[in-house]
């Protein structure tokens, strides 16, 4: 199947190095301590953060740092074909784990010993790149909750189809079976915290593809920063400062 046309356009009309339209909104869940919606094209996720609060299960308490927990869930209506999946299947457990590890790496957990931070991400629409969208939403929600972090983590994926590196794969491109590189990145510290790839790729091409994903992460970080600045300005305005 042809994923990049001779004119250099992808199936949804993007250029190979072009990202889908992104949109973010802070404060989607009124009752949570911090929450955000993040959209990448047709992928839409909600993240909610509860905490830092008392550890619910005492046996899990850590005496010198905060306990970070994460749950990823997909709504029944999120995919094209309706399906009723049991909670806690292998895929969502794996993604929960990935998100938890990525976020834990950037939260300053040692500042909040004997407490617990819950991150819940809910996929409303899935069109490829839910992992990345979830991490981006979780970053915004954590920032909204005022939880101290080393840096914003942002995530983006890239792939390699028809001998062309492609940024931000959608569902059709993702299911084509080509390599899919997901990168989590700390833009200020200039460090990679998450790196996953399936399928196979020559090393020199891998470098390009990963670099492309990192550029995507940087673009998302800029956008997230703008959204947060806008939100802070609004808060300031409402307080009448």
């Amino acid at each position, binding site marked *: 199947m042809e994923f990049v046309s001779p004119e250099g356009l992808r199936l949804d009309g993007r250029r190979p190095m072009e990202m889908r339209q992104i949109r973010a909104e802070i404060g*989607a869940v009124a*009752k*949570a301590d911090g929450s955000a919606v993040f959209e990448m094209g047709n992928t839409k996720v*909600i993240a*909610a953060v*509860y905490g830092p609060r008392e550890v619910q299960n005492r046996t899990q308490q850590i005496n010198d740092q905060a306990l970070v927990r994460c749950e990823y869930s997909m709504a029944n209506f999120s995919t094209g074909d309706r399906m*009723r999946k049991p909670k806690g299947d292998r895929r969502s457990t794996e993604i929960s784990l990935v998100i938890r590890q990525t976020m834990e790496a950037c939260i300053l957990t040692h500042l909040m010993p004997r407490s617990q931070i*819950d991150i819940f991400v809910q996929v409303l*629409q899935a069109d490829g790149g839910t992992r990345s969208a979830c991490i981006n939403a979780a970053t915004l929600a954590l920032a909204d909750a005022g939880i101290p972090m080393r840096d914003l983590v942002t995530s983006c994926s890239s792939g390699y189809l028809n001998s062309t590196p492609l940024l931000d794969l959608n569902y059709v491109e993702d299911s084509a079976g080509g390599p899919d590189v997901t990168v989590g990145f700390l833009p200020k510290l200039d460090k990679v915290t998450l790196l996953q790839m399936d399928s196979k790729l020559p090393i020199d091409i891998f470098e390009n593809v990963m670099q492309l994903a990192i550029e995507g992460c940087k673009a998302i970080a800029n956008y997230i920063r703008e959204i947060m600045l806008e939100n802070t300005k609004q808060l300031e305005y409402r307080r009448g400062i």
Partner: protein
Amino acid sequence: MVENLKEISKSKEQAKQDQEASNYSPLEESPEFEDVQEVTSSGRREHKDEDTDQSEEDLNAGVNYNSLNRSPTLQSQQYGCAWIELGMVGLSLGEKHFIQGGIAQDIRSDGRKRLTYRPINVETGVIPQANGSARIRMGATDVISTVKAELGKPISLQPDKGKVSIYVDCSPTAAPMFEGRGGEELSTELSVALQRSLLGGKSGAGAGIDLSSLVVVEGKICWDLYIDCLVVCSDGNLLDALGAAIKAALSNTGIPRVQVAAGASGDEQPEVDISDEEFLQFDTSDIPVIVTLTKVGRHYIVDATTEEESQMSSAISISVNRKGHICGLTKRGGAGLDPSIVLDMISVAKHVSEQLMNKLDSEIAAAEAGEDES
């Protein structure tokens, strides 16, 4: 308007704190506290419902409820109802009295009267991959409902009727306790209550949705409607919000027109052609709205918040259609109700439902118009 409300809540919070200071702290410090707790920790709940005069003894009893409420096992034994577990909001005695007192005086913590709803915000077409969808926000309560239509086969007992099923999912974003399988109990309870309220009896009689309109070829092909709801944020009154969201989602739903190929006969399954362009709209005027009356003390309120729900003795959810007929009824909560009160509540619900129905219709129409423009 919003600022006014904030002012009210601010002054109320002040009052709350004052009350707390006068009621709560001396009791907590009293040395007999623990003894009293052990003596009265059983069989006091019924007592609370009838008594509204607050004697010293009653206050002590109140403290015991407080400690009871903190223990989840005791609590679920008492109510056997998942709704209440949402209400573990950790209110102080002062706050409880404040909520109860406010309801008795017809001015609630957020400035509403007993029979006033929070502002309802309707958005339609929020989930593009579904046949119809809507998101309803009532205060902090936020639910999404979607309708998906699939072609299926009618069951042999009712060859002239389609199938509709309702599933509710409680997202852990709404409350940390819904994590893992924690939301399942509430999800099931809500699904069953919604089915009872909206879909009528087992035979499909009295359903808000005309099931015979879903049939394509009698006995062979019909539409199966899957209504999936997601609770994104919960601040009380989930059932009313879900009922409204389903109504809005159904009026947003377009069912593709189906062309049946002629010539299929006998037991053969006829071939069908699903149109991409022509859609049939549903008639949603018969779909009832659900009104939940929550009884706190001697009075009942509509659209209770989580805090108010934690103070309820019992609640009745009544679904009423446009003609004023009652389509379904669910009672929950531990305390019993006098039959005459039930009848009284039904007539109040009927009255409230008219306003809610009109409000909802205009909001849905506005949302649809807004969607067409954009």
